[in-house]
């Protein structure tokens, strides 16, 4: 059966799916905690009887008993798949013989989650999971299943991986369903919109919900989903919310209510209804009856009347482009940024992630991610950056690279629907990038340039835009997934062409009906007071129809241009967002730089408090800020100090002095740990300024020595280790943070590679002290001359000695004393 004919079957009429397997097997006598999938082999008569009951009750779909079968759990998964298919075949045969019915029955290959968490949350490698799902699909298809149904997924990342893997069997129709909580999100935080957007263009036959709760609780989610997708909906709720009696979940259904809710589901436009936990033949019979009556009354499932929109999503947040102005944060891009280049080269993902988090806080709706610098494995780095970033920021990502391999690495591991930056009118680029866009159901940004460069005239640029849109459509990419960047030129060099860009924006938007993107700040290159030009150009571009500027969200005047435009263009109805943002601010402050505002704020507070001895020198002010934990003023004060003294002196004379004072107060019990860390944060902010200045001047950095830190193997608690890291960095040490659950071999490797003299190991549980001992033994056996410092709740001087450590540190400040002793 081909995908198209299955899709047609699903759209012709509302279809009756089947009931639950697991809860029915428990009723037959299966023990709690035993695998349902084993019953296809151990008690096939139970499985056959359950299928047959569902068929007799009117089911048109039989979901075979393979929910828990996968190659990761079972080496002999093929045996279980075949046994389950055979049970279904026997049930269908028995049903036909007994009833004489020739009803069309579809056999669904049931695929559940693999039962392990994907990296980086867990240890399961993405490609291993991908292979597992693919192998199930290949086997299920060869056994003759009509389609696959993915059920009970709560991790969108795993589900997306499964859908892509099943796509390797091109003819296999796929239905993807997830389980939600009453909060409207899954356990992993995915909401209905993000699910619909992420899965929407991956070639699914249908999408929906299963399990979770009863039909009543599911209705609002179904209604929401209908408004978010043009795919047919499949819904398989539980038979209500169970009461646990003894150990058994008992479901009680009020069948009159149930029928009413079923009717409502059909009205919303659902294409298939079945049941999950607790739903048996009685439920299926009811579904059959309601659907038949509904058809008899002349109804059919509503085709979607959804207006297509340009949308991207992370796993927990979706963004629509073309309504409100969407800000694409541009700062994760090493062009012209020495500090970021250094961070990329040193794999300092923390720096990259912080840059991301900060932009989101400043108002970015989407983050551009470009990590292209020479002499690195860009694809591998993009994969790592995406995995790291998506754990910390919830806005969708824009994967930015000139290399198709890097683009694919980024979008493959992305948990959501990304925006690909970019394709252009060059044949070679169109042919290499568009298949990736199609395969991963992404949006793509098309640049109006081709083999001949950027055309000066608006007409030619429009032609390229048109070509990109048409070629995308030829690849099966819907038009609303294409965005066009008409390319900003600099007013200093090509003054006449600035308007050509804007004219193209207007035509692309009106005539091609796609959304537009522009990197705005290029316009002012080579001219003074660039922010003024940028701001005016942005306002003009918005008026011409720009939907999503790529910009630095830290620039208050640019944000102001957008917010004011949204009022004047009637997008911010009732000026709500404008009032919220500026209701209590004076225009001078909005236009002043952010840091100036902070400094001004800080001095004002000091004045108003009438501080006894006004702090006159920036040196005293920084010491005071460190002691009081005032982070906001640190950067500006450090910049001031840099004009007065060298960086090394700032560290030795100011930072260390102040930190020692804070450390003493902590040891005396005069402050709590978070207060010590607040001071450390001030120092961190100061250090960022110092590092930036040093990177730009090409001077050697501040480095008192190198230290490796790790939470040992099997231990996932790393808060203590992170505190030690912050404090050590404060004192000017370079920390190689290997993370948590780190294998001994990896620690030895890091020590060798970086000529390390001091290693800090952390463990929180007695069970993982064994890993610590193992790590120390391996370090000694490898002949490295390192001093090992250990710490963590379960450690003591005594245990440290027993496991062969050189030092025990009771807290972070003590690690510093030890490091000073060894490294100076």
């Amino acid at each position: 059966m081909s995908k198209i004919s299955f899709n047609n079957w699903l759209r012709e009429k509302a279809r009756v799916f089947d009931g639950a397997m697991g809860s029915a097997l428990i009723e037959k006598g299966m023990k709690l905690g035993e695998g349902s999938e084993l019953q296809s082999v151990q008690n096939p008569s139970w499985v056959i009887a359950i299928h047959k009951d569902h068929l007799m009750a009117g089911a048109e779909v039989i979901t075979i008993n393979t929910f828990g079968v996968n190659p990761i759990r079972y080496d002999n998964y093929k045996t279980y798949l075949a046994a389950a298919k055979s049970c279904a075949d026997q049930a269908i045969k028995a049903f036909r013989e007994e009833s004489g019915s020739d009803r069309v029955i579809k056999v669904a290959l049931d695929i559940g989650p693999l039962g392990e968490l994907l990296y980086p949350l867990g240890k399961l490698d993405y490609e291993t999971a991908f292979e597992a799902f693919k192998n199930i699909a290949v086997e299920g298809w060869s056994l003759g299943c009509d389609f696959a149904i993915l059920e009970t997924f709560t991790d969108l990342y795993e589900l997306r991986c499964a859908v892509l893997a099943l796509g390797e069997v091109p003819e296999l129709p796929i239905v993807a369903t997830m389980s939600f909580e009453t909060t409207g999100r899954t356990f992993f935080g995915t909401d209905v919109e993000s699910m619909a957007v992420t899965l929407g263009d991956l070639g699914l036959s249908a999408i929906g919900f299963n399990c979770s709760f009863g039909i009543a609780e599911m209705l609002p989610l179904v209604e929401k989903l209908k408004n978010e997708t043009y795919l047919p909906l499949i819904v398989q709720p539980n038979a209500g919310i169970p009461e646990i009696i003894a150990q058994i979940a008992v479901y009680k259904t009020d069948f009159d209510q149930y029928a009413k809710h079923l009717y409502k589901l059909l009205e919303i436009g659902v294409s298939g209804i079945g049941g999950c936990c607790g739903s048996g033949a009685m439920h299926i019979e009811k579904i059959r009856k309601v659907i038949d009556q509904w058809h008899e009354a002349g109804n059919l499932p509503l085709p979607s009347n959804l207006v297509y929109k340009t949308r991207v999503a992370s796993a927990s947040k979706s963004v629509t482009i073309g309504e409100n102005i969407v800000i694409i944060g541009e700062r994760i891009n090493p062009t012209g940024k020495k500090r970021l280049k250094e961070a990329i080269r040193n794999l300092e993902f923390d720096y990259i992630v912080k840059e991301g988090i900060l932009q989101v806080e400043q108002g970015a709706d989407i983050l551009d991610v470009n990590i292209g610098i020479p002499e690195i494995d860009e694809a591998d780095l993009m994969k790592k950056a995406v995995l790291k970033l998506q754990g910390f920021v919830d806005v969708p990502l824009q994967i930015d690279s000139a290399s198709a391999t890097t683009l694919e690495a980024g979008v493959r591991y992305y948990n959501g629907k990304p925006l690909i930056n970019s394709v252009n009118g060059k044949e070679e680029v169109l042919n290499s990038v568009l298949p990736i866009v199609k395969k991963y159901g992404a949006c793509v940004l098309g640049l109006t340039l081709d083999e001949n460069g950027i055309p000066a005239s608006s007409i030619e640029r429009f032609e390229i835009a048109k070509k990109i849109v048409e070629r995308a459509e030829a690849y099966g990419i819907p038009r609303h997934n294409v965005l066009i960047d008409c390319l900003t030129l600099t007013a200093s060099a090509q003054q006449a062409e600035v308007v050509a860009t804007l004219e193209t924006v207007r035509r692309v938007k009106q005539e091609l009906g796609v959304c537009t993107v522009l990197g705005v700040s290029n316009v002012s290159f080579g001219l003074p007071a660039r922010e003024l030009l940028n701001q005016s150009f942005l306002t003009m571009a918005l008026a011409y129809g720009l939907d999503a500027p790529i910009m630095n969200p830290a620039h208050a005047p640019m944000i102001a241009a957008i917010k004011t435009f949204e009022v004047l263009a009637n997008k911010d109805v009732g000026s709500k967002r404008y009032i919220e943002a500026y209701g209590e601010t004076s225009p001078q402050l909005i236009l002043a730089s952010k840091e100036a505002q902070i400094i001004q704020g800080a001095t004002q507070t000091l004045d108003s408090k009438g501080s006894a001895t006004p702090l006159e020198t920036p040196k005293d002010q920084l010491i005071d800020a460190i002691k009081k934990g005032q982070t906001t003023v640190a950067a500006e004060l450090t910049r001031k100090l840099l004009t007065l003294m060298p960086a090394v002196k700032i560290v030795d004379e100011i930072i260390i002095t102040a930190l020692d004072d804070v450390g003493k107060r902590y040891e005396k019990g005069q402050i709590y740990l978070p207060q010590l860390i607040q001071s450390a944060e001030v120092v961190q902010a100061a250090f960022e300024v110092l590092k930036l200045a040093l990177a730009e001047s090409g001077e050697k950095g501040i480095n008192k020595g190198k230290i490796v830190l790790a939470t040992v193997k099997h231990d996932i608690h790393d808060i203590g280790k992170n505190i030690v890291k912050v404090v050590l960095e404060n004192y000017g040490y370079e920390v190689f943070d290997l993370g948590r659950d780190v294998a001994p071999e990896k620690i030895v490797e890091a020590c060798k590679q970086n000529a390390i003299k001091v290693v800090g190991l952390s463990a929180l549980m007695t069970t993982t002290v064994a890993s610590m001992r193992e790590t120390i033994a391996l370090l000694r056996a490898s002949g490295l001359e390192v001093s090992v410092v250990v710490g963590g709740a379960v450690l003591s001087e005594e245990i440290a000695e027993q496991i062969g450590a050189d030092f025990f540190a009771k807290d972070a400040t003590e690690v510093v004393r030890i490091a000073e002793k060894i490294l100076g």
Partner: protein
Amino acid sequence: MHFLESYVSKNEILRYLKGGNGQVNQFISEEANDQIHALIDSQLIESFNLISPKSVTRRFNLKRHDGVIELLDQTDQCIGLIYSNDLLKFLKGAHEVVLGALTLGSEISKRIEKKMLIKPSEGIVLNACASVIADAYADYLQNELLSDLADEAIYTSQRYSPGYGDLALTAQETFSNLLEMRKRIGVYLTEQYQMLPEKSITFIIGLSHRPFQSEIRTCGTNCQDCKLIKCAYRRTNV
């Protein structure tokens, strides 16, 4: 007000924040004291906005052997084993047990991780709040259990968890299977039987017709007085 708020002790949170030296902060200045309390208050509000508490509990009959407890289903068939002499002593007199698992969900762990990166001073406090709220949730569930059992004239023991005494963390596997933790509350086990999301607890409570007289302390504050020498959570330097 969140239903767990009245179960949360601010002193407990402060205890977490004393850090490695664990000194009583009698020298703390009023300013520093106010500041820490304000910080805790703000992070508590944030915690309550981020958590989505979920739990699952089930009752089992039990059979005792030397060093092992058999958990029985409603037909008295064995469906799980727990190996622990300390737990056997702890459950002396119990005719039934309740197994339970709870989680605060993954959002709060994500936020703690994010804060540890950009604002560790708040991250530490948020982490402490979450740990204390998880314990508070366990207290709440225990109270619920007590009131559910009010008609049955049944006494309950304290809570006992995998990792205490000689009850190895491997027992988490039994909890996970019998409580269907992944499916019902979204809690996964790592290879070494630690739970994800991190702010999750598993526990066992004994039910008896007579009051429990267990001498074994089960967790909380005073490791030095505790008889569970091999406890995975034992702090040696308190």
